[in-house]
């Protein structure tokens, strides 16, 4: 498990483009909204939670494509499936690295973008906590989608069609937590819901993803 973590980490470090692009995408998408909706601070602050969360969801989705496809094409995926180690643990390690490189940067960028959208400052901590829990669940759910579409040629579109409906609960509780905090309401209920979704995803997603991976690997000749 630790060595897979190291391997993924060093591979990701070797080609930074793979995880920097979704971060830039996140920043660009968030800056688009004021241009589209109009700069008035009042409207911006009401839509800020939703905008931040939807862009985070899309950014995570963008970076999911490469989770298994690179390993599939150079043959390492089938070696992982054939190794003595349990595949769900390996999948968990890969997802953690993917999250550290996609979810965490979003998390660190979010305060700046929150101010950009005139999000009330007391909502920033809740925004960060909700993104912390939410993006990990999104990476886990997304891993199932990525595993199901491994090896398919234009898998990007199919991946989002499969993952988006499954990530709606995370989006709902995430954005409403931030909205509640923005309006000085207690956001603990929504955050606990996010935590519950995360625990469910942590327990089920690696299992389902490895089942899908074994099937995906068998497809390729």
């Amino acid at each position, binding site marked *: 498990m630790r*060595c897979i973590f190291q*391997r993924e980490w060093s591979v990701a470090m070797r080609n930074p483009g793979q995880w920097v692009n979704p971060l830039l995408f996140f920043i660009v998408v968030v800056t688009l909204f004021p241009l589209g909706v109009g700069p008035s601070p009042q409207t911006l602050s009401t839509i800020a939670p939703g905008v931040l969360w939807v862009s985070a969801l899309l950014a995570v989705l963008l970076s999911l494509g490469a989770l298994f496809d690179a390993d599939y094409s150079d043959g390492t995926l089938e070696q992982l499936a*054939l190794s003595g180690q349990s595949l769900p643990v390996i999948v968990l390690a890969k997802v953690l690295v993917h999250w550290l490189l996609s979810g965490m940067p979003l998390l660190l960028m979010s305060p700046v973008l929150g101010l950009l959208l005139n999000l009330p400052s007391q909502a920033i901590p809740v925004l960060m906590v909700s993104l912390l829990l939410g993006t990990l669940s999104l990476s886990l759910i997304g891993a199932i989608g990525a595993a199901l579409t491994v090896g398919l040629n234009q898998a990007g579109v199919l991946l989002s069609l499969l993952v988006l409906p499954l990530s709606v609960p995370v989006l709902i509780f995430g954005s409403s937590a931030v909205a509640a905090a923005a309006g000085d309401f207690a956001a603990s209920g929504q955050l606990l819901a996010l935590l519950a979704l995360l625990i469910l995803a942590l327990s089920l997603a690696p299992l389902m993803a490895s089942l899908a991976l074994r099937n995906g690997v068998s497809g390729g*000749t």
Partner: protein
Amino acid sequence: MNELLKVNDVTVWRGDNLLLDDVHFALNAGQVLQVRGANGSGKTTLLRIVCGVGFADEGSVQWRGESIERNRHQLNNELLYLGHKPGIKGALNPIENLRIFCALSGLEASTKTDDLIKNALANLSLSDKAELPCRFLSAGQQRRVALARLLLQHAYLWVLDEPLTSLDKAGLAWVENQISQHVSNGGAVLLTTHAPLQVKGVTVNTLEL
């Protein structure tokens, strides 16, 4: 001794034509089985089914008497599969790649394992390339990095899919020598290759597809 590997009536359809028709063979310890056939005759598919990576429409594969769907874990521990694709990360250098394979087969990363890796690479005359990311290596050299696993992982059954491709004469001799050593101390090898194989001291039985 009981049969190590038993494949009975494996049948694979590709649409309406029959790729593998009731393939049936057994492999015991100390034996080498060479699968021969024209391109596209299902050799790779058969090997992948034996390893549990591929699925057959009909028929079953038994490892030590039990179907591989049930004892997948045991098979994986005792199997070493070299496929068409090298199974090597281009971004990492040979040492890092081989460290992963050692960890996957239970050898925790340590200086001792690193030494094992280094002299395995030296054995394959790759020691000067040990620090170079693999994407800069030629196909033959990448194949040698994959072959280094034969020394490092103590697997019982070797399943090698055309291990000799893009290897030079020296590489060819090295592989044949490894196979005969492995088989002499009780291992089993299932492989496909186009080049004729002379493994000293071992009868190579063949399966025509």
